[in-house]
């Protein structure tokens, strides 16, 4: 038993990151750290990382994500304002990536040594609807599609643009989805995998612009660091996890104030790998924003491929100290509201690619000196 436990001590900790808006970028830098592995779903995670300040209206969602993590589980809170009252945490960390990784590893080791310290459920153990014994067969349904069989109603039909009226899945895609920026909540209606309608549930209050993990500001430019964090997340969403790790390592190097030659060399290698991976080709024609759209700033116009190319070039220029770029600046705060017409009629993959290419998390952070 002890040997098996020691076997697990060196393993990278599978972590699901539930980030508040201000901390999304800092969390991406963990992709480059070998001590942890960011997973896209809480089911694969052993530890929950609560980073930054989570909006008060998203706390029930946080509790649900915590409960969805299988036992044995633990949690770590990172950054000022991380609301530990919502979830019992094993440690609260203020500091950089190294500190939080150390805290996660310690929490994981403690969990491996004694699985009984796993945290209890935060939500009541109640079915969503009463179904046991209800209805003619006892499974909660009535008639063909009515009632709540096994706890939930069945999906109902709705018209589709090609004339078929098949079932629609109404989902609230939550604030802690790995592929979407933090604190973005979408009410989507899906028919098949095409979005019929999208509503953005606006986050209510403004959040501080502080991002945990930005403690040591070296000579590196914060704009380049932010751009590399976005690139790391975007590469991960498109299936290039190793290149995402490379971008995250580069972002950490920028934050630690590495030499400019090293940084631009690293960026050159990364850029070459990105070009050869074909990700830019898959983005052609996806999420086209024309100049008439209210989103249509210069650096947002075009399709997803244009935005990626612009932003990678901007990161490159910033690393070589050729000046600040608008492409790395934030989108206006109200950008969330202009998403629905852009996403309507797109397949889920295309919609996620569009959202990722817009870099919406930039609504929370603005580099100094850029309006």
């Amino acid at each position, binding site marked *: 038993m002890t040997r*098996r436990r020691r*076997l*697990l001590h*060196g*393993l990278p900790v*599978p972590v699901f990151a539930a980030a508040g808006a201000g901390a999304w970028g800092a969390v991406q830098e963990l992709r*480059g750290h*070998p001590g942890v592995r960011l*997973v*896209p*779903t809480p*089911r*694969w995670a*052993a530890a929950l990382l609560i980073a930054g300040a989570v909006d008060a209206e998203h706390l029930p969602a946080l509790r649900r994500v915590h409960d*969805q993590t*299988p*036992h*044995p589980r633990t949690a770590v809170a990172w950054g000022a304002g991380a609301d530990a009252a919502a979830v019992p945490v094993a440690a609260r960390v203020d500091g950089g990536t190294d500190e939080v990784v150390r805290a996660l590893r310690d929490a994981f080791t403690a969990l491996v040594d004694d*699985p009984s310290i796993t945290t209890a459920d935060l939500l009541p153990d109640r079915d*969503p609807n009463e179904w046991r014994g209800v209805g003619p067969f006892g499974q909660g349904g009535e008639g063909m599609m009515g009632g709540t*069989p*096994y*706890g*939930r109603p069945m999906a109902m039909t709705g018209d589709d643009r090609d004339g078929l009226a098949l079932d629609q*899945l109404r*989902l609230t895609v939550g604030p802690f*989805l*790995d*592929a979407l920026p933090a604190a973005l909540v979408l009410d989507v209606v*899906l028919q*098949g*995998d095409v979005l019929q309608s999208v509503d953005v549930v606006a986050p209510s209050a403004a959040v501080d612009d502080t991002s945990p993990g930005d403690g040591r500001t070296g000579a590196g430019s914060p704009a380049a660091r932010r751009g590399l964090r976005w690139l790391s997340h975007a590469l*991960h*969403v*498109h*299936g*290039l*996890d*190793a*290149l995402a*790790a*490379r971008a995250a*390592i580069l972002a950490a190097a920028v934050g630690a104030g590495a030499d400019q030659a090293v940084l631009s060399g*690293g960026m050159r*290698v990364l850029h070459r*790998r990105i070009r*050869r*991976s*074909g*990700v830019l080709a*898959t983005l052609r024609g*996806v999420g086209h924003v024309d100049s008439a759209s209210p989103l249509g700033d210069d650096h947002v116009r075009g399709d997803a491929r244009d935005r990626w190319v612009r932003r990678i070039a901007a990161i490159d220029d910033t690393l070589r100290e050729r000046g600040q770029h608008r492409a790395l600046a934030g989108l206006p705060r109200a950008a969330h509201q202009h998403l629905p017409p852009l996403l309507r009629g797109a*397949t*889920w*993959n*295309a919609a*996620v*690619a569009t959202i990722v290419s817009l870099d919406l998390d930039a609504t929370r952070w603005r580099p100094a000196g850029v309006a």
Partner: protein
Amino acid sequence: MTDVTHLDPLTATALIAAVLLVGAYLVVVTDRALFGVVAGAPRPLRAVLTAPAREAVLLLRRQPVTTEAPDTITWVLAPAAYLGLAAAALAVVPLAPGVAVADVRTGIVVFGAAEALAIVAIFLHGWSPNAPFPLIAGYNFVGVALSYELLSMFVLIAAALPAESLSLGAIVESQQGLWNVVRQPLGLPLFLIVALGVTFSGPLDIVDSADMAGGGAAEDSGVHHLLWSVARAAMLVTFAAAAAAVFLGGWLGPLLPGAAWMALKTATVAFVLIAARHLVARVSPERFVRVAWTVLLPLAFLDLAIAGVTSL
């Protein structure tokens, strides 16, 4: 034709189990090692070599969560069926001169059937948890899978033409003069695309993709996740072995014993597939369907025509 010693069931089971488990272990090790290399931060060798065992132990100790109203039977059977089909497909591949578990005269048909049923297994894996993202991922996958399925059939039949037989052993023997990768150059790239699709890795990782919270495996935890990953790695071994047998001459080669050549060629193909996983971005399902039917299918026709003309 070489006399093939068909193995008795027990030896056959032991051989296939050994090949699949050792192969799956090597696939996971190579995957972790390549991840570190491509990321620019190579992992220490000891960590990489012990990673599969450690991750297996971790997953076995975690709780296998269920969802609200799943189809438990298919949820349990899906990885089992997937692994069973990998074993069945590997059974028809000749592993050494004169050694095959089941080198039947219709080897390609069995292989194609295993591949087609794998579509069902992967779809059921996404369908069974009764959760939105796995369901959508499963349906997306079926669309992509039907598109590459035809490519595999055409390419394998093209390889069967010079051999005048549907048995993989005969196909290996027909390459004694020249390997199929040389005289049917389009065959191997198309077959590799199919292999990437069946093991849903790299550019065709539609079903377990990160943009759907892990896709079909989003609700898997603990033993479900472990067995699904093992089955996927085993299927990669099977397809690498088939590619080696059909296009790279199987166990043919000077100096070394046949089994060693087979192992070497399988390892090479597996390496290429795993490298594609880390270096090539995921494609959009809709675009892949369009490209597969309008570009890749004509290429498969061309491959068949080349094979036909050169065999006469």
